[in-house]
């Protein structure tokens, strides 16, 4: 489970002064569910997810991920999380298997378990053909599969995806979407960020709309449709974000 409790992140910028990237974000995501964080570029999605994955430390507030506090028990949180984004690249000079093995060992797996997990994941993702090929020689689709294997090797109960389909072709993006769905079916807690409305509509059990670092609306798609009187998610998004946009620009 993920439970964010008033997460805040402020950065200092020499020119712009203090930047409030995330301001008091609270939500809950349950096992076997997908929570979609929807927002425009710079809305605070990546910062929120990085805080949940303990890559960044919150300035204020906290979150409980898989039963551990992200501030107090960051290493335990990371051991129970699989984090995937288009920014999480692969080591170019390692082979696909070495890459996954490395992360398995860092997650504390013993050699026998690691071998079993790798054989299982590589078989399931049809990766045996490029097991020993260096990551810099792999196609984009193959790389994404290695990244998925890397996040799954320690079988984490929580999966965090930060715009995982950004810049990918249709077929590779479909693989990722299928993988996210499979994670839910296996009872994992899944949170992912995107600005692609169709992905949210297809996948999410709960949706959070984030803008200027604040969570402005939250709930299942049907509730959001009823609340804002719109069927199309894009229209709902514009209605939620619109007045704030005007306020900022004014």
């Amino acid at each position, binding site marked *: 489970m993920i439970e964010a409790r008033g997460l805040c992140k402020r*950065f*200092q910028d020499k020119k712009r002064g203090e930047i409030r990237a995330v301001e008091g974000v609270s939500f809950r995501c349950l096992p076997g569910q997908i929570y979609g964080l929807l927002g425009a570029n710079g809305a605070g999605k990546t910062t929120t997810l990085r805080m949940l*994955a303990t*890559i*960044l*430390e919150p300035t204020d507030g906290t979150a409980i991920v898989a039963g551990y506090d992200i501030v107090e028990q960051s*290493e*335990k949180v*990371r*051991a129970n*999380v699989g*984090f995937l*984004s288009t*920014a*999480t*690249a*692969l*080591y*170019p*000079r*390692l082979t696909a298997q*070495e890459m996954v093995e*490395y*992360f398995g*060992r*860092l*997650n*504390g797996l013993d050699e026998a378990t690691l071998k079993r997990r790798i054989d299982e994941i590589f078989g399931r993702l049809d990766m045996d053909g490029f097991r020993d090929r*260096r990551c810099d020689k792999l196609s984009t689709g193959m790389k994404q599969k290695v990244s998925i294997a*890397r996040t799954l090797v320690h079988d984490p109960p929580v999966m965090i995806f930060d715009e995982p389909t950004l810049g990918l072709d249709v077929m590779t993006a479909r693989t990722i979407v299928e993988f996210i769905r499979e994670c839910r079916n296996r009872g994992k807690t899944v949170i992912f960020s995107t600005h692609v409305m169709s992905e949210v509509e297809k996948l999410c059990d709960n949706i959070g709309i984030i803008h200027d670092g604040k969570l402005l609306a939250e709930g299942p798609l049907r509730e959001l449709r009823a609340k804002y009187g719109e069927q199309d998610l894009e229209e709902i998004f514009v209605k939620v974000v619109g007045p704030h946009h005007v306020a900022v620009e004014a």
Partner: protein
Amino acid sequence: MNARNVGFVYRKELTEWLRDRRTLISTVVIPLLAFPLMMVGFSALAIMLVGQAKKETPKVMILGGEDSPAVLEGLRKLDNLEIVPSTSNWKEMISNKEIRAAVAIPDGFQAALATGEAKTVLIYFYEGELKSSFGADRIEKFFKDYRDRVVRDRLAAKNLPETILKPFEVKQQNVAPPEKVGGAAFGGFIGYMVILLCMTGAMYPAIDLTAGEKERGTMETILSSPLARLDLVLGKFLLVLSASLATATLSVISMGSSFSILGKFHAFSGGQGADLHLQIGVKSAAAVFLMALPLAVLFSALLLTIALFAKSHKEAQSYLTPMTFAVVIPAVASLMPGIELSPKLAVIPILNTSLICKEIVGGTYHWNYIALIFLSTCVYAAAALFLATKMFQRESVLFRS
């Protein structure tokens, strides 16, 4: 700290490092080939060129001297000079390397010798041109021998001994053993090279493991693993240190072999062996490495810290280039004549190691200074490593945008 995880990071970094062609070139190929090529190759070429120049019979021109037939006859009899007929454009011919030198015998030179009047013989040559110098030297030797003969004849005529002009001899005699002579001549250079290579060997991996990772997007990948940042920085640091020491070791082996080959080549070609006598014993080599070790730690930690600030390879290179000067200047300062170890200099990083390496290669072990330098450099190295671990904790550095 989790030693197991530090080991995993180190092993992974080492695997990637060994698979990088650029690494192999900068760490293995260049140190192993550059020195032999530079030292043996250039020396062999220089010896060959000098030998060829010596073998040549230089063409020289005699200006005047018609009233000094004995001198002209003496010059013409020399088989290591070719006398060419005199022309008015002799200066141009020397400059154009058509002749190597010219000698102007003053009017009435021979007659003046008989009366005891001192005249000046001028030798014209092309300064900086090797073959021209050889030609001028042979003419000068002829005239010096001739002058000595005249002096001897004059002394004999007056029944005076030759010692009247040279009542006693004065000589300098070296008492230092040959390896110390070699150490004094080349010891500073060895220390300088070890220090410089410790730094250059660490530079590329330090950039690749920090700014390079940020640029490739793998920094975020590793930060999402349960690995503690302290373990991450230690694993990376150990790899950078290994690269630094590997480069320095291979370079010293390569330099030692080059010196040995050069010495043999020099002895074979009939040169004076003493001035090339350099032997680095196992004890000296081990001592130099022991002294260089904390310095390599200091460089590795500092380079890692500085490179971590950068967002890209290119940016990191622009930060680290000034660092080369900061290392080269104190290392070169130790090569300056007259600079010797003192308690104050012994705590100046880089300069102190360079100075002590010079002493060690020369076979002198000042244990007090060795302890002081080793410990002070260890303190600086520990501070740099502490700084590096702190930097890896800072989000503003890791995610600088």
